[in-house]
């Protein structure tokens, strides 16, 4: 099956990137690369609910933080290898995603979006007041110096995040090509008509929030090891919310390619900018890019590329699924 092949190809690409980073000989590339890969997972996860279904989640940070804090909590009880922590983090976030969806998905998209913001703040307040995980004082998670056979620990973390990124992209691609993907598209286009056509919209939306939340939690699970000292303000940082929205919107929301492009481009840009300029300016750039793209190029980079391809003289037939774009005469308010 093509999806299996795709997964293997991605793994191969990932391995190649890892080898290249090894060759560069500086651990910095692994630290930076980890963050970029983390964003690949977050952006892809966000896009499953936001791009495919059209439901905007402002609380990505909450799911990410849930993953991180379930690691902290588990770590305090008994030490467990990171892959297990990833599963636990994913499970916790997935369940919360399901719960949140159940509470709010019957509402219009705008209310859902606001509810996600509210949820993020409520969760943050709960964590800040929960002393077991350190509350506002923060929690230390000691990162081992090295782990065989990878050498420095960061290489191990990098590989785990690489696997997660490959997994996330594969999941997104599988969804796109399945009946679920069609269902998601109808939810985005016209929920009323979708229901009338037999699509169980609530069930599909719950699936989307669960998968999306779960993936974000998985991305957050290794974070305490990466950062060493976890505070609510860093786990719940608005950066995650903005980036997980900006990256898919800039890259393109209709397929798995968009969030990948957005995460790699924007993520790398920010890593470079943080080193050369201040991190506040780099966030400002993200903000401007987000607003700019959303106004000028609503279909993102992939949209621009498609437009360019479609206008070429050889007239390649455009892909089946495109964004609902400007001036749709039949569009019903």
């Amino acid at each position: 099956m093509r999806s299996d092949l795709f997964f293997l190809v991605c793994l191969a690409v990932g391995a190649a990137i890892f080898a290249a980073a090894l060759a560069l000989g500086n651990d910095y590339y692994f630290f930076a690369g980890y963050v970029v890969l983390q964003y690949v997972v977050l952006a892809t996860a966000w896009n499953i609910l936001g791009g495919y279904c059209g439901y905007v989640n402002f609380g990505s940070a909450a799911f990410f933080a849930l993953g991180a804090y379930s690691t902290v909590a588990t770590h305090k009880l008994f030490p467990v290898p990171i892959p297990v922590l990833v599963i636990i983090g994913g499970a916790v976030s997935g369940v919360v995603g399901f719960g949140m969806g159940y509470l709010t998905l019957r509402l219009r998209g705008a209310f859902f979006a606001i509810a996600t913001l509210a949820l993020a703040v409520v969760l943050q307040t709960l964590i800040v007041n929960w002393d077991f995980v350190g509350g506002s004082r923060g929690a230390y998670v000691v990162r081992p110096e090295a782990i065989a056979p990878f050498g420095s620990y960061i290489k191990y973390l990098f590989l785990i995040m690489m696997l997660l990124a490959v997994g996330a992209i594969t999941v997104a691609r599988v969804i796109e090509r399945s009946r679920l993907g069609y269902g998601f598209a109808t939810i985005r286009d016209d929920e009323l008509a979708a229901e009338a056509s037999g699509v169980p919209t609530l069930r599909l939306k719950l699936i989307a929030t669960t998968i999306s939340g779960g993936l974000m939690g998985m991305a957050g699970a290794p974070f305490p090891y990466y950062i060493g000292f976890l505070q609510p303000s860093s786990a719940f940082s608005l950066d995650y919310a903005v980036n997980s929205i900006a990256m898919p919107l800039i890259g393109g929301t209709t397929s798995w390619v968009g969030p990948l492009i957005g995460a790699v481009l924007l993520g790398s840009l920010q890593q470079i900018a943080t080193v050369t300029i201040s991190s506040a300016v780099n966030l400002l750039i993200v903000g401007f890019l987000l607003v700019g793209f959303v106004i000028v190029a609503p279909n993102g980079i992939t949209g621009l590329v498609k437009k360019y391809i479609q206008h070429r003289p050889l007239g390649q037939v455009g892909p089946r699924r495109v964004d609902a774009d400007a001036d749709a005469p039949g569009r019903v308010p």
Partner: protein
Amino acid sequence: MIFSFDLLINAIVSGILIGAFYAAVTAGVSISFGILDIVNIAHPAFIILGSYIAYIVNASFGFDPIITSIVVTPAFYALGAGIYQVYYVSFEKRGQESLRGLAFFFGLLFITEVTLVLYFGVDYRYVEAPYIGPTWHVGPLDIPLRILMPCLVSLLLIAALQLVLTRTFIGRAIMAVAQDQFALKLLAVDPIRIKRIAFGISIASASLAGAFLIIIQPVEPSVGREYIGRVFAICVLGGMGSLPGTVIAAMLVGVFESLTSTFYGPSWAPAVSFGFLLLTLAVRPAGLLGR
């Protein structure tokens, strides 16, 4: 937790007073979201902007922040009108306001906050005025004037807005545009122009709300974030677009927050309004077609 009648009554009263201020903060969103159906989550950012403008003028020239904010209102109105125009052309016309419109305002929120951080840093800023500092003592009540003043002016602002909405042609056109754009067109009134005016008024109110805010508490750029959920919670609770409803809902939230803060500690306070919001949204019978 020490329970005393004095504490209780002070908590309730200060909750009501703060609630009036919350109503002024929410009034703009009642117009933009409650009436125009535009999810402007960047509204708190404009309020913070108003706070900083009041701060600069106050720190440089010593002018009263409320007066300053009134003077600056036309500029905020123009800003609001401009933003609506961009929003309309880019999103509303194309029918993409749900995803991209939201992202647009989110981006604006972010840009505003980060720009303020770059210019002013993350230190808390405050203003000075004769009514900031003294406290009235009325029986068991301690009423800081710096809370009472904004509360009173907030109520004035809401009353003024309500008058505009119900007694003027423009105001009624704004109420009408929410219900029937086509009918408005038949009356030779351009609904887009009406919405632009309404959105301008919404942002203009943020200028005043910003002055109130910085009188009540010191401000730094990320303070706006705690108001996002609060503002939408109050708007929804208050019945979406009803200013009187907004006042009542705001005072309710204010009192609950105050009680929580007094008896459980301030670190739980943010959860109150957001919790209110989640509860309201979960219990609300709005379906896909209903409002």
